[in-house]
């Protein structure tokens, strides 16, 4: 099973989940996703996802000056984004539940 393909299907949810913890900028978002275990996540994929979610009205953005370099654009989740994340959580729960029952049902019996 190719985890990269799986990740593509859930990257929206993963990005929303990270932003739900607090606003951050693109580079840090990539770092957090990798730290969480998605080591192969592509920078371009994250930026593409951010762009799509922002254009879809699920995110906010804010320019924040930085002492270390150029000003950074911080992305945050808004109400629509939170709703979407909640829906995604339920879908994920159902999905994993089904998959778990399929994968482990025999082992439990």
């Amino acid at each position, binding site marked *: 099973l190719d985890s990269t393909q799986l990740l593509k299907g859930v990257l929206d949810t993963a990005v929303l989940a990270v932003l739900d913890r607090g606003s951050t900028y693109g*580079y840090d978002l990539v770092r957090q996703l990798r730290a969480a275990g998605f080591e192969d996540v592509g920078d*371009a*994929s994250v930026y*593409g996802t951010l*762009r*799509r979610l922002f254009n879809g009205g699920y995110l906010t953005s804010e320019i924040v000056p*930085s002492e270390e*370099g150029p000003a*950074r*654009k911080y992305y945050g989740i808004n109400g629509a984004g939170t709703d979407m994340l909640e829906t995604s959580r339920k879908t994920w729960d159902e999905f994993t539940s089904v998959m778990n029952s399929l994968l482990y049902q025999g082992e439990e019996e």
Partner: protein
Amino acid sequence: MSVATSLRRDEFLEQVAAGLADLPAEDRDEVLEDLRTHLAEMDVDEIYQTLGTPESFVSEFRTSAGLEKTGKLRRRRFGLAGLRRSAAGLRRRLEDFGRRLAATTRWHSIRSIWVWVRGWLLISAAIVLSQPEPFERFPIPSINGQWMGPLFMVVVATWFSFWLERTEAKGSELVSVLFSAATVVVVVTSMFAGITLSRPGYGSVEPVHFTGHLTNPEGEPIYNIYAYDLEGNPVDVYLFDQNGQPIRSMPDWMHEDAELFNEPFYFEYGTVILTRDINGRLVPNLYPLAAFDHEGSPMAPPWVAFPDLGASPSRPSSALEPGVDPVG
């Protein structure tokens, strides 16, 4: 940050920008701004190692952003290949503009009219450039007074114009464009030539060869007449022939033109301005005519020697007085 590092970051950004050229400017600028701060966080070696090539970055970005895939990135390079790409880009933009223009009804009308008239315009303008009197039978141009030949040329040019419009032969579109361009160039040239000819004082003015109907014994045309009283003072006179007709030193066509255009006449000896009466009608036989040389200076009366008539000139008091013997 070294210059080389900066250049590599800029190069990466520039190529990504080229790959996102189809995005709205605002969207593209935001993406590039994100990427610029992202690159600033990375070592230069890390950029290509982590992000891959600009092409792969753009491709991945477009996929995850839900954008359509595009072809290869347009790299900005100099040299012949760059020039060729620029020319191809310009051509694409012109073709797009042409297609949009062609979609409008007004353009169709203008184009139809242009196809109709460009043959006539081309031939007419070329004849205007080469002939002093190109339109004796307007709208048919004429060469040396002959109009059949020019008419045939106009018919052939008009037929060719229509053929170019309808044929799908290879290269016909280019020929059609060249035909239109040649027409415009010749028309504009003939317009400028016309303006030049109608202005005095230009070296390119073709002098009208004066062939007056009055000539002196040497066969030279008499275009002006100076009269003096018996004391040798210059006087203005009206001249008439034996039938009471005004004596005109200028050719008839000059007088006809003078009726139409209130302008001086330029001929090989200079310029003449015909006098008009208080009602604006020409007075063709008032002498001397107001004549000017090519520099615009009034022509001085010729130097003349008057005969010595003595205290009592043996001259009839009036040549028209009946019953008087002129010899006394």
